[in-house]
């Protein structure tokens, strides 16, 4: 079970069979024996039935994610796993969990006029309840989706980030606890997404199991090359929606897949016996069996 600090399957107790499963035809329904012992469910079923249960628990339907965010995550899935869902053996791919959070809608206070797509500064509140204590942060990114219809060659942007501290719920306007400003330069030709790495900025907050992160992002961009004195007030059509927060995590729980572990496991596989060690050892047989047909052939 995860530590009590964060949300996790252990928070949901009792019989955890997603309601849809109970409507299923009997052959797909979980056998009685399994229903009794919730802990018998393999981790994925546990998580899923917990989710199934939660989405109906308080009668509130599951919140639907932003379609752009869903498109981005589907693209990430295609890059990280094969069509059958097997994780790709990619050296740079150290994460085994990626979480995408969209800001809570009721907390946005925009200073620019969103309708004209001119978004200079926005207040964002991200709720990280779903991050468990066993998930360790590898990288965090603010993800802007751009309206690529704007004819831009290249962009030089100044981004100013500040995290708001809301010590007590009574405090009305949170004060800035720490902030950072940095410039970035990128080509927005076909790219629909721009990732702004905020790992070092958010690391201390996430490491202390902060559940809510409240930040103000001020983003000003100039078209063309900053060396040539472009007009200061030329704002491109900024991201038409507030950014999402992407967390690349290493889940250290047992049910999560650990690349380094699987390599180690292969070398020391206990089911592979030592040849000739047993009094009954068959001298002719080879180890392991994937399928009889291929053996016979």
């Amino acid at each position: 079970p995860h530590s009590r600090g964060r949300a996790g399957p252990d928070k949901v107790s009792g019989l955890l069979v997603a309601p849809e499963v109970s409507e299923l035809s009997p052959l797909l329904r979980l056998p009685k024996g399994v229903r009794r012992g919730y802990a018998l469910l393999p981790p994925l079923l546990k998580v899923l039935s917990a989710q199934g249960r939660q989405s109906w628990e308080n009668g509130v339907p599951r919140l639907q994610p932003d379609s752009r965010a869903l498109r981005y995550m589907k693209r990430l899935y295609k890059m990280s796993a094969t069509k059958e869902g097997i994780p790709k053996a990619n050296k740079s791919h150290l994460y085994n969990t990626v979480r995408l959070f969209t800001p809570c809608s009721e907390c946005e206070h925009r200073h620019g006029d969103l309708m004209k797509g001119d978004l200079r500064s926005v207040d964002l509140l991200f709720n990280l309840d779903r991050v468990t204590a066993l998930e360790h942060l590898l990288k965090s990114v603010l993800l802007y989706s751009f309206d690529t219809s704007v004819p831009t060659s290249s962009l030089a942007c100044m981004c100013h980030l500040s995290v708001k501290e809301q010590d007590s719920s009574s405090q009305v306007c949170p004060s800035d606890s720490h902030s950072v400003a940095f410039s970035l330069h990128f080509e927005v030709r076909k790219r629909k997404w721009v990732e702004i790495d905020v790992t070092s900025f958010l690391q201390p907050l996430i490491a202390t199991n902060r559940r809510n992160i409240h930040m103000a992002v001020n983003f000003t961009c100039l078209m063309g090359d900053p060396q040539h004195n472009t007009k200061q007030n030329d704002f491109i059509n900024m991201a038409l929606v507030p950014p999402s927060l992407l967390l690349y995590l290493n889940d250290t729980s047992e049910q999560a897949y650990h690349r380094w572990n699987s390599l180690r496991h292969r070398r020391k596989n206990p089911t592979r016996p030592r040849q000739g060690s047993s009094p009954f050892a068959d001298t002719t047989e080879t180890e392991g069996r994937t399928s009889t047909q291929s053996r016979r052939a």
Partner: protein
Amino acid sequence: SRRRRHESLKEAPASPHYNLSEYFKQFLFPQNECELHSFRLSFSQLKWDKWIIAPHRYSPQYCKGDCPRAVGHRYGSPVHTMVQNIIYEKLDSSVPKPSCVPAEYSPLSVLTIEPDGSIVYKEYEDMIATKCTCR
């Protein structure tokens, strides 16, 4: 067994090559021996496709079949399996025969929507059986 094979060959009708290999199979390995079987499910069958975005289909596979008496190293079985078989056959048949179970697995990547609307990509260990053993 050579004489029996010879006699049965005489009886065996002249037939194209593949019948012959089928015919010999009965001598090589017992039928329905412990092996890996394929099983594909789609999350829409379980009505979980509301929150499992990918993959659409999943093949967990499973192990089924009889464990031969002298398993030896054929399945990577330890000596204990042999001993258990002897106990079952000669001492106490209430002790179960060795069972055909998965020996190795591969992971699965899953993309799901969380109850709060956030989206998570996760890689789970041991989700697809890739090899069987007798234990």
